[in-house]
Structure formats: C-alpha cells, structure tokens
C-alpha cells in the first residue's frame, strides 16, 4: 500500500498545479467562484480519468519493466521534481517528469528503451504547436458565430460565461483522461493495479490536489492570463482541452501547461498582440530538457539509495 503514496503525492502536485490552466482565467476574472471551480474540476478530472485514463497507461509502462520498488521510486522522483519546479514557479510537465524518471530507473536496470521515446518527444513538441493551431482555427470559426449570430450583448455575456465553464469542465475532463497515466501508470506497468483501479486512485489524487492546494497557483496563473478578454479565454481554454484530448486518443500523456501557453500564443497571433513573453516560451523549451533530465537523475539516485540499502 505504501508504494501508492508516491503516486498520490505526484497526483496531488499535478492537481494543485494544472487546475490553474483550466479555470485560472475565470477565477481571476471573477467569472466563476474558486470553490465552484475546484468542485467542477475535481468531478470532471475523475470522470475523465475513469472513462479515458487507461488509454495512456501503455505509453507510461512501455519504457521500463517495473517492480513495486521501481514504481514507487519513479513516482516519488517525478513528484519531487514537480513540487520543486512548482515551488520555483517554473512551468512543469508531469508527463515529462514521469517519463524522465522511468528512463532514469531503466538505465540502472539496463532496460530503458530510448527507441520508443521519439513518439513521446514528437507529441511533447506538438502539444503547444497543436494547441496554437487549434486556437487559431477555433478563434476564427467561433468569431464568425459571435459576430454574425450572437449580437445581443446579454446573450453574448451568457454564452461567454457559459462557454468558459463548459470549456473548463472539458479541460478538466481531458486533463484527467490524459494525465492520470502519469500518476498511476507506473503501478499498472508493475502489475500492482488494474487500469480501472489506477484510474480511480490517480483521478482521486489529482482531485485532492485541486481541492486542497490550488488557490495560490490559480490566482497567479489567472492573473498572468487575465488581460485577455473573455472570448479569448474561452477559445484558449477550449483549444487546450481539445489538444490534450486528441493526444489522449493516441495514448500519449502531454503537458496541459504547455498546451495552454500554445493556445494563448495562437490567440495572440490572430489578434496581432503579444500574449506570452519570450521568457515563458524559453522556459517551456528549457522544461523539455530539464524536467525529464532532473527526474531521471533523481529517480536514478533514489533507486541507487534503495538498492544500496537493500
């Protein structure tokens, strides 16, 4: 049972951080109350994890043959890196953290399969790019609807508020479906849990992070995005959700944080305004290398310690 603790810790960290990508804008702009937002996210994350979460378990498990101890070490290393990067306010991807961890452990035991890594790396790179493309298309299509059909200001207000809530719920669903594999995929790989049990434990641990420790991050991230108008916020949230949901269908866990940044860049391209700083983009680029590398090193170190103690 203790082996699950590291996964629950990782899920908690994921929930506390990534909920900001979903409803940060709405909460910071007072469109939706924080309490309502976290309840909606928790429910939708759990539904997403249970219904579609198992689709990504195979990808997480394919890099290493896991035992109880290695599953524990991988989730612990990823959890620590996620917590550390969050503490330093750096955008962090749990997907990159857990894959890095698994590869680190795989190196020790000599079964790391770098050959399978290309598919995942392509998906990581395509996440912000894909979200950007989706947001550009969505912005244009929905703008046509809003400018030609919904002319009454009252209805516009209603549709934008409702749109933000619906997009947020879909985003939470997609997050649960895509990212639950990062949290408990290692336990499926090690045979400790069946996919449904892993989805349930993972979904609940993500929800626990959302419910207990997401306020600060949600405010911070929300404030970063809040200069956007409501329409752009709806489009970027929806684009992020569609993007990570698409990657769920190919079975690869990706970063929700990087998807939202890509979506915001897309909105900025359409509106010809600067929505994201070069620094934020550089941080994403650095994150692609540093997060898996640090997780790999840490999991390697943890396993060395555990092996030495054994």
């Amino acid at each position, binding site marked *: 049972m203790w082996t699950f603790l590291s996964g629950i810790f990782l899920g908690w960290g994921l929930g506390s951080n990534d909920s900001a990508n979903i409803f940060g804008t709405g909460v910071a702009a007072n469109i939706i109350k924080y309490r309502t937002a976290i309840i909606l996210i928790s429910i939708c994350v759990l539904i997403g994890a249970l219904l579609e979460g198992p689709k990504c378990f195979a990808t997480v498990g394919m890099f290493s043959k896991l035992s109880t101890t290695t599953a524990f070490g991988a989730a612990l290393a990823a959890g620590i890196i996620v917590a550390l990067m969050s503490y330093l306010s750096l955008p962090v991807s749990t997907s990159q953290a857990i894959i890095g961890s698994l590869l680190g452990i795989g190196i020790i035991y000599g079964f790391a399969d770098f050959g399978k890594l290309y598919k995942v790396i392509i998906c990581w790179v395509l996440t912000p790019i894909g979200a950007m493309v989706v947001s550009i298309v969505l912005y244009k299509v929905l*703008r046509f609807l809003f*400018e030609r059909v919904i002319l009454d200001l009252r209805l516009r207000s209603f549709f934008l508020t409702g749109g933000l809530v619906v997009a947020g719920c879909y985003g939470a669903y997609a997050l649960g479906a895509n990212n639950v594999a990062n949290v408990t995929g290692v336990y499926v790989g090690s045979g400790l849990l069946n996919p449904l049990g892993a989805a349930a434990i993972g979904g609940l641990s993500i929800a626990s992070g959302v419910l207990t420790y997401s306020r600060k991050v949600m405010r911070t991230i929300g404030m970063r995005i809040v200069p956007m108008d409501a329409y752009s916020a709806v489009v970027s949230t929806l684009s992020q959700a569609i993007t990570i949901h698409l990657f769920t269908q190919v079975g690869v866990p990706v970063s929700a944080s990087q998807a939202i940044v890509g979506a915001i860049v897309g909105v900025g391209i359409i509106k010809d305004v600067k929505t994201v700083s070069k620094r934020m983009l550089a941080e994403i680029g650095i994150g692609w290398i540093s997060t898996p590398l640090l997780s790999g090193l840490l999991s390697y170190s943890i396993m060395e310690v555990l092996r030495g103690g054994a």
Partner: protein
Amino acid sequence: MIWVKKESNVIDLILKLISKIEECLRASMDTIQHYLKAEIDEAKEMAKKTDHLETETDEIRREVEGLLFSGAFLPNLRGDVHVLVEAMDKIADSAEACCDFAIGQRPEIPDDFKSDFLTIAADSIYSYDPLKEAVENLFSEKGKDVSIVREMVKEVGIRESDVDDLEWKLTRRIFTSALPLAQKLHIQYWLEKITNISDRIEDASDCLNSLIFKTRI
C-alpha cells in the same frame, strides 16, 4: 430570458436612464427659453423639474451600479458599462447646473445676445439625440449594429465641435462689447455652463466608443 436576468435589468435601466436624461435636457432647454424671455416663474418651474429629473437619473445610476457589482455582465465589460452610466448621469448633472446658475445668479443677457444663447443652448442640448440613438442601438435586443453606433458617436463629436465654434464666436462678441467686465464674465460663465452640456455628451459618447471596442471580437 431568465438566464440573463441581471443583464436584462441593467439594459432596461440604461434605456430608462437615457429617456430620463432626455426629459431632463428638454426641461433644461425650457428653463433657458423661459429665462431668456424673462418668464422667471415658468423658468423656476422648469428648473425644479430639471432638478427632480436629475435626482431620478441619480437613482437609476445607483440601481445600475448595484446590479453591476452583483455580477451583471462579464467583468471586462462591467467596468466600461459602469463608466458609461456615470458619464451619462453627468449629462443630467450639467443640465441641472446650467438651470441652477440661471435661477440662482440671474445673469443679465443683453437682448442682442439672446438669440445666440438660445441657438447655442439648443445645439448643445440636442447633440444628445445621436448619443441616445447610439446607446439604444448598442443595447438593442436585436443586437447592435456597430456601424450605426460609430456613425452616431461621430455625429456627437461634430455637433460638439460646432457648439465650440459658436461658443468661441459669442465669447469674442461678449468681450468686445461695451458691457461692464463683471457682466461680461458673468454671462460668459453661464455660456460655459450651457456648452458644458455638449462636452459631457461627448464624454459619454467616448465611453460608448470604448465599450464598442471591448465588445468587438
């Protein structure tokens, strides 16, 4: 529409506000006309009506503010709606100030200036008409026609500029006349109060312009 009840209430109140301001401006025009005809009792009566209508516009503004702060409209639009309502309320304030000045201080307008005062007052006050049309269009249930709103906002600007021209010419006539300096200053101050109405109308149209910009996608 139950799901947009707060927004509907705000819009109903704004539409009520623009009608009330129009009434207030017409009462102030009547005040000026009666005053220039030396019909002081009638002018006082109309000035009272102006005061009363201005108080009503204040009440409507406060009601709108209450609804806005309780969450009507999206936050990024809420502030601009509030600013617009405040700016519109100031139009009624300026009409009231103009009447109060006439009744309270009784500026003595020489006969050969009276028709100019009347023309400027009418032009200043009726620059409200395009603003009213623009606001009604923006908040129409059928949906806004931005081109009409923009055209009307532009019209307000043209009318305000015309009033400024007339004001400048009359000010020059006043100060080149043989009137005592105190009287010159006194009637010029009333002229300023009259033209202040079109200035406030233009301010409100600027707020409207900003609101149109915010509602654009």
